[in-house]
């Protein structure tokens, strides 16, 4: 177990190093941020001074080395636009993004697991067919368009829910959370619903497929023959067996949701890290983009790691090597 942990941590570090190098090389060869930062009437001297000040006039290897050294100390450079540490800008926005992601997953799970199970147990009934067609539609629906439809319906036409921003937040254990008060909660509904629909469709299909497979297995037949009620067989024994793939996918999807938050956050002007990175890309704010990519990569590496560990806890047959 210890050897496995050590190996995984080393692997993760190599991955992060690769990511940082690839991104840095690409950034280095992309446009000059100085032109964006200064007004067009700036003199050549001003341009050179700013380039020197930002360290952009030094050779590539030196820039990368400085970047790596600082990165290890948790310093990924200062934002050109905000003139604040890039890491701080992003870390400040992580709770908003996580709040969105977790509420979406929660929503998808509490609806998706029962719906998928129902569709598997009564595959020929009309609600089951409706659930499956709905899930196909959910997978085909582009996330950003769904968001727009929700805004159009609930904000523009009906005027029930707000369509942009996070609303009021409450401090809880040092973190700003929106869902603890009514205003923040109302702001959360549309964006998290937008993210949840795709995840919901995915979970329904996964649970249904897993359930149908499990229901054919011998131990289910045995339990039924033993005289256990249908409910107990389904809700206790079958459910236990499909939870492993569901947990894995949900863990991995969490990473996807955090990445996809760039879309949802742009639509709903949600002040999370996704919106920050899109704004930074358009504003050529190189350090923030770089810091975002590295921090998100770090989150992914950690998530994958946790999913692997949870996997072994749920299924003792799997041995980590």
């Amino acid at each position, binding site marked *: 177990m210890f050897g496995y942990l050590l190996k995984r941590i080393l692997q993760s570090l190599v991955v992060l190093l690769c990511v940082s190098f690839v991104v840095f090389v690409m950034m280095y*060869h992309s446009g000059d941020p100085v032109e964006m930062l200064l007004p067009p009437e700036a003199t050549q001297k001003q341009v050179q001074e700013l380039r020197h000040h930002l360290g952009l006039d030094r050779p590539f290897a030196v820039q990368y080395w400085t970047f790596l050294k600082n990165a290890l100390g948790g310093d990924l450079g200062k934002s050109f636009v905000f003139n604040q540490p890039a890491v701080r800008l992003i870390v400040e926005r992580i709770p908003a993004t996580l709040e969105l992601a977790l509420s979406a997953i929660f929503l998808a799970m509490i609806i998706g697991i029962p719906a998928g199970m129902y569709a598997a147990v009564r595959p020929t009934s009309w609600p089951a067919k409706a659930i499956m067609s709905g899930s196909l539609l959910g997978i085909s629906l582009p996330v950003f368009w769904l968001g727009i*439809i929700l805004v159009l319906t609930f904000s523009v036409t009906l005027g029930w829910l707000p369509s942009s921003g996070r609303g009021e937040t409450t401090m809880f254990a040092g973190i700003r959370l929106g869902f603890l008060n009514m205003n923040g909660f109302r702001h959360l509904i549309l964006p998290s619903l937008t993210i949840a629909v795709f995840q919901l469709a995915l979970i329904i299909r996964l649970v249904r497929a897993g359930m149908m497979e499990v229901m054919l297995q011998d131990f289910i037949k045995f339990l039924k023959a033993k005289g256990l009620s249908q409910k107990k067989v389904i809700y206790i024994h079958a459910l236990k067996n499909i939870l492993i793939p569901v947990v894995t996918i949900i863990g991995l999807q969490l990473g996807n949701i955090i990445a996809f938050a760039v879309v949802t956050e742009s639509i709903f002007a949600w002040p999370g890290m996704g919106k920050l990175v899109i704004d930074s890309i358009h504003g050529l704010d190189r350090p923030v983009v770089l810091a975002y990519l590295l921090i998100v990569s770090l989150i992914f590496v950690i998530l994958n790691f946790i999913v692997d560990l949870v996997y072994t806890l749920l299924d003792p047959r799997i041995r980590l090597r």
Partner: protein
Amino acid sequence: MTREAWSGFWEDFTQSPSGVFGAILTLLCGLAALLAPFISPQNPYDLTQLFLEKSHLGPTLFKDWSYSHFMLGSDGQGRCMYSAILYGMRISLYVGLASTLLSATFGTLVGLLAGYAGGKTDAMIMRIADIQLSFPAILIALTIMAIWGQGLFKIIIAISVVNWVFYARTARGSTLSEREKDYVDAARAIGMPATLIMVKEMLPNILAPIIVIGTVRVANAIILESTLSFLGLGVPITEPSLGSLIYEGYQELFSGEWWISMFPGIGLMIIVLGVNLLGDRLRDVLNPRLKR
């Protein structure tokens, strides 16, 4: 395939109504995209055909059912939405197909090489694939477009970079099982060079699963392209795809002009749904394990 195999395939395929429905939707979208210059009432990119007094028109389709100019309304520049959607569909489908073709070709060749060569080559290629797969597609494509800037060609490359992994893994898997077969040994025995064995002998035998994945991934590529275009990181404004049209419409949403974003979105959904249904059916028909 022989004629008999074709008719057998056709018979299998048409057994599912949803598959046929998907095929029809895909065909219609393909035709609409192909014939856009001939069937659209207006060339939306010809500035001499745009008139500002015709801007912000609501759709007339629901009042009187007629096929005409501005039946789906117009946008802020007096552009007929119906024509814009046809042209947008053209670009969306083009990017989807081109990126799929590119990534399938590259991915298949790399996977073939990994499977045939084995050893260190295999390990290295597959490690890269694993690392890439642990990051979401949108993030990789976003990074490339963020650094590189907008462009039709660039987005095709970006989507191909995201998708090659799927083909490489599948091709490698099939190659590993093909490698053990007698015809490969025979080809080796007569002194055929490795490149020729891979491309001429093995490639045709591993193509079926690649085609199936390709169909499903086209829908994915189209969604990814429109998402990036919606974020302003996709195709340039001069060649708007469905995603860029939806973004443009989103700006006008709060002034109540819902049609500018709604109709391109419906167009996008029809393509994606059609290709998904078609792909699902192809997978079922071509997968020998599911054969009765």
